[in-house]
């Protein structure tokens, strides 16, 4: 966990409103783990004031990749950065996905921009483990398949793949995994995570949920990002105790 002034390298458009940026950030890249995030200062002045948290999408050598949708001033500024500009990044932050355990099939479930952490996770899943990806979006253009393997898609409007939500699609396909030892890794909007949590907890499937929340500092001092513990006994902090939680640990 450190502050690194990182050089902005490039910005690629993935879908209509989704971008992938590449930055030169060797120190953070060296220690980053899948599912962790970085807190990025998108401007040099006090507007916007706070950093913006982004999942680490991928790591290639000394380079970090972040994927984001443009939906506010912060992300618009990030999209408009030019090559060579400096970005002030704190990272890697939080606790990422738990990869250790007895499973032969990794199921990735992503909703919308929830695809962001999976390229880096894919690389770190041991080679003998099969990866199956379920990706959901409102419409075809919101299904982000970037570097995803064995994709089954679901769209709310039926414009691509299964018509319905991605958790329903996963439930429909569950019997195909009867003979497999699966572990679910998921990232997406809270209603999706909650539906998935219900299914996995009921069926005793090990499920790792990457949750999203409003955040200020990103490393535990502001206490601004609580998530209720599953047993109701207080809160975890998403930035420090998460952003990835076992589905048995938190209430969504």
């Amino acid at each position: 966990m450190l502050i690194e002034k990182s050089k902005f390298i490039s910005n690629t458009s993935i879908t209509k409103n989704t971008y992938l940026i590449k930055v030169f950030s060797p120190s953070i890249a060296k220690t980053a783990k899948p599912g962790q995030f970085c807190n990025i200062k998108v401007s040099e002045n006090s507007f916007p004031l706070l950093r913006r948290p982004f999942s680490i999408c991928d790591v290639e050598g000394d380079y970090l990749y972040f994927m984001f949708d443009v939906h506010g001033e912060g992300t618009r500024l990030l999209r408009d950065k030019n090559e060579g500009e400096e970005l002030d990044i704190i990272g890697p932050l939080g606790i990422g996905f738990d990869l250790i355990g007895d499973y032969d099939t990794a199921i990735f479930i992503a909703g919308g921009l929830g695809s962001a952490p999976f390229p880096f996770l894919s690389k770190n899943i041991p080679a003998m483990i099969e990866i199956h990806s379920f990706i959901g979006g409102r419409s075809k253009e919101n299904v982000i398949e970037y570097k995803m393997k064995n994709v089954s898609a679901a769209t709310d409007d039926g414009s691509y793949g299964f018509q319905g939500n991605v958790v329903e699609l996963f439930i429909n396909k569950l019997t195909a995994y009867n003979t497999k030892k699966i572990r679910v890794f998921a990232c997406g909007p809270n209603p999706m995570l909650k539906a998935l949590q219900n299914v996995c907890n009921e069926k005793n499937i090990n499920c790792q949920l990457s949750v999203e929340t409003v955040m200020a500092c990103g490393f535990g001092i502001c206490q601004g990002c609580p998530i209720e513990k599953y047993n109701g006994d207080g809160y975890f902090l998403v930035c420090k105790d998460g952003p990835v939680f076992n589905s048995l640990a938190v209430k969504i």
Partner: protein
Amino acid sequence: MSKVDLSIKIGPLELKNPVLLASGTVGYGNEIANFTDLSKIGGIVTKSLSLKPRLGNPPQRITETPSGMLNAIGLANVGVEEFIKTKIPFLKEVNSTLICNIAASSVEEYVECTKILTDEESIKAFEINVSCPNVKEGGLEFGNDLKAVGRITAETKKVTDKPIFIKLSPNVARISEFAKVVYSEGGDAVSAINTLVGTSFNIWTKRPKIKNITGGLSGPAIRPVALAKVLEISRNCPIPIIGIGGILTWQDAIEFMIVGATAFQIGTANFINPNSGLDILKGIEEFCIQTNITKISDLTASYQI
């Protein structure tokens, strides 16, 4: 060796420099120590401690606003006992000057906390939070009441030999009246200001963005208000002032000292740049050299009006 004497005195408390890290923006020091050398900072003010642990408010606790942020954390803290057991040893280890912030829901609880903590050698002073806008009991209820502030000052002074600072609320008509009460009851300094009550609504859902409905506004948005409050106290009461409110840069810190602050606290800036305390320290030292100031304390209340 620095050419500038950066040391300051807040009442009987001597600090190596005027930079303090504000309560609620540094936790208990362990996380921020990853980014900054706490031994070089004038001191750190802990997250508010209450007698028993507090879970804090349910989410959503914060939201960003123009040049600021609203928070309603709800005084989430580990409680006095756990603080002594697990947090103080770390703070000793990093050799940081420790000011303990106390929040309570009754005068008795303020006194009890102070009494328990005063035996801890590493605690150099207490900052009494009578102005948290985000809890149902205590907090602003006290901060708005001259008599209560006076009583809390007097009663906590009775149980400790260490300096007592009272953290004042800006959500009052005449903040200098509160400073006068603290002064007359033997308080050693006032910290000004705590956050301003604010809110923000989502226009599509028509719901408040913060679960608590209102929160405390901090950040550069409140700086002019804070400066005005510090100046008001400075012109009306001889008590030392610790200036707080939206300091992001060394220039901001200098401004607080000019209008009357003996020391200042960095708050929201820690969330953005956890090393900002030391960056600011470097900036004010260079300013002093540049303007031939040999003692930083000469800056305090040096305004020309």
